[in-house]
């Protein structure tokens, strides 16, 4: 979610609420002989308010699971999750009196801190990562389909090279699980559309395409696999351009169109790899934020019950 002018009311509301809470906390803290305590009435009030906001922030996950619930707009929920979650941390700090307390409360504060920090980290990433992806990834696709599309690209490349250089010395041209396409094709169904037809009418004999076949089998095909080779030349723009320029030099002119096609496939593969990496950066923090939030809510509920007992 972008922090833009649309958040102004939420920002002001959060700042005002924080100021009010601070105005209440300071005299309360100064007047207490033993310092602030979560068990005092003001401390309990801070705790109840903070926990309520925590529950609200945690309810965003449930709201997303059931998008058909008509309980406010998704953006409103998201803004509330962001700002009220932040406010809840302040209130809980006031509730605890900036002390760690016992074992459970220590764990709670650590979890809460990690959850808040990971959330802030996610918000920061969302300020520039989507724009970065839009600029650098014109061929961006659905993240979940990246592996499948990589398989399709490899199949297209196999077919393209095989059509001009003869059968490729590989065990299987296209694994069955990758031999599928989109557009409503069922899982496992063969891709019906192949590489687009070449414009050259008369192609030289396959023996003259030996350098292409050799380079494809040795380097290019590995680059089109799901796992990118760690030390492949194609990972670097300059070496990739040099490789394809070298192929154009070595191959007769009719094959240059094949080389161009292969280079475009490699470029698409590169963008998909970059998209995957950026996606992990953009959403990886959720693997920490969401699970720890669940644990936090559970432990906080137990803490609330056990602490008011004594």
């Amino acid at each position: 979610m972008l922090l833009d002018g649309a958040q102004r009311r939420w920002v002001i509301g959060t700042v005002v609420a924080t100021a009010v809470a601070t105005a209440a906390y300071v005299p309360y803290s100064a007047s207490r002989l033993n310092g602030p305590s979560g068990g005092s009435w003001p401390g309990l009030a801070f705790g109840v308010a903070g926990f309520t906001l925590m529950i609200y922030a945690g309810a965003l996950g449930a709201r997303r699971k059931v998008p058909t619930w008509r309980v406010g707009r998704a953006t409103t929920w998201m803004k509330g999750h962001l700002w009220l979650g932040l406010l809840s941390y302040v209130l809980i700090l006031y509730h605890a009196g900036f002390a760690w307390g016992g074992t459970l409360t220590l764990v709670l504060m650590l979890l809460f801190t990690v959850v808040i920090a990971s959330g802030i980290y996610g918000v920061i990433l969302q300020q520039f990562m989507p724009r970065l992806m839009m600029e650098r990834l014109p061929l961006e696709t659905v993240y979940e389909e990246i592996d499948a599309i990589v398989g399709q690209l490899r199949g297209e490349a196999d077919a393209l090279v095989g059509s001009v250089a003869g059968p490729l010395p590989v065990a299987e041209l296209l694994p069955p699980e990758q031999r599928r396409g989109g557009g409503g094709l069922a899982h496992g169904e063969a891709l019906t559309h192949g590489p687009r037809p070449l414009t050259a009418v008369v192609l030289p004999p396959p023996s003259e395409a030996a350098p292409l076949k050799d380079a494809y089998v040795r380097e290019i095909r590995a680059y089109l696999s799901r796992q990118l080779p760690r030390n492949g030349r194609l990972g670097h723009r300059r070496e990739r351009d040099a490789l394809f320029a070298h192929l154009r030099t070595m191959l007769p002119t009719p094959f240059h169109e094949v080389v161009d096609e292969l280079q475009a496939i490699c470029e698409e593969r590169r963008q998909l790899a970059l998209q995957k990496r950026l996606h992990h950066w953009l959403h990886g923090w959720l693997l920490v934020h969401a699970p720890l939030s669940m644990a936090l809510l559970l432990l906080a509920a137990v803490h609330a019950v056990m602490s008011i007992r004594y």
Partner: protein
Amino acid sequence: MADPRHTTKVRAKRIELSYFQRSHPFRRWRLILSIAAPVIAGGWLVGYAAFGDSRLYTSGPVATAHTMFGTRCADCHRSAAGTEDTPPTRDAFFVRVSDDACTTCHRGPTHHETQTFSPACVTCHLEHKGHVVLAALDDTHCTQCHRDLKTKPGDTPMFETKINAFTGTHPEFAVQVGDRRVRLDRTTEVKDTANVQLNHQKHLKVGLKGLDQLRELRGPHGITQTPKGLQLSCGFCHETDASRATIQPVSYARHCGPACHELDFDGRFSGVAAPHDTPAIVHAFLRTLLIETFEQCQSPGATGAAAPASDKLRTQCSDLGLAAKTEAPAGGAPAGSQPDGDEGRSRRLLRRGAAETKDEEPPAEQPRGRRLLRGGAAEEAPKAETRTAGPSPLAWASGEITGIENILFKQKCQFCHVKNDEAKGPLPQYLPTRIPVRWLRHSVFDHGVHRPIQCLECHKASTSTQTADVLLPSVSVCRECHRAVQGARTGCVECHVYHDKSQETDLNGRHTIRQLAERPPSTSRQR
């Protein structure tokens, strides 16, 4: 023209329409972790509950002294109505610690009878804060009253009413002078009223007479070798107790008598010293000594034996002007030659007195001195004198004792003690010394922790020549170290104790080991 292989249509056909129905590793892991994290957290709580350990839920560690009860919440968090007969309520919410829970083990007497209110125990002694000692409180607990001290209607505050901190408006120390408290800064009024004459400056003089003998007799402890000679150190007389916190009272027997202020009284009684006791005891001692010596000299053959002891007795008898008989009794020995000295003499005197006055046997619990005094009664109503020749021993002793007592009381006793001029009677009376054991009775002070500092830094004894000098340091001396910034601690509880420890509960507590050690059966239930 757009690249035909990258048109929207071509790219869209690559995407499977039902891709969102399949589980993707990223989303799958998020789901797994979102379930696993609460499950692990719940398992953690269940694990602790299974072992019956509720420390997890405490808001902090308990004080060191309460560690044993750290997992037994209901021991302290119980209803005030709970007694030994009626179990306290344990399953309610908001069960705060009542004073009853604390007074089970601690009495916690009232701070001062004139205070306007008595706070609950937990107001000051807050548990679960990780405090090692619950009595180590912040100054605000004290200054909530003492910054503007109020007392019950009709009572006048005995102490300074505006104290905000030790480094702030804490007043000068005050000591008891007579029946009133006088601050140390009132130099004309503050004085030591002890009835003893002592010159600290003289005692700290380098090369003080007798220190060589004293060091041979007592060892080097408390005697310092300086370039100019030997010097008494403060610790020779002012010894601490076993805890090294408190200075013990000075003892004549340990610190004054040996080699310095011995109570010898007559050159004719070489090696004999009077006891450091009341004049009546001293008088009884002298009278008995003289009678015994007389009898030794008059006993047949006492001076006739060839032993060196007999020579000494012969000389002593001659000096005393007593004629000696020629036949010595079997086993007889002169008083001055008894190997066990004063103690042996006293025992023999007691035996003798018992033989003379069996009908007046004093109770066994009567002090030694009183039993010696019993001879005084004999002096007033002497038994039938068995001897028929020569002067009466009582008459001779009465004649001698006047001169000896004149020397002993005036030169020895009155050297340190103050005579009571108002007292009437044949013997002089001396005022009780009244040396205070503790000067600042509303505070505690640990000399042991201050041992890196020279005594004279705080106690100006080297310039004190008068007994009336009060050698306590001013509060300003303490503030040289106990200051707010980069100094020793300045908290009220460093010196002051809120509850009167002398009223603490009896050492014979009410619990059994089983009660304290075993886990209460309700522990698992309440968790």
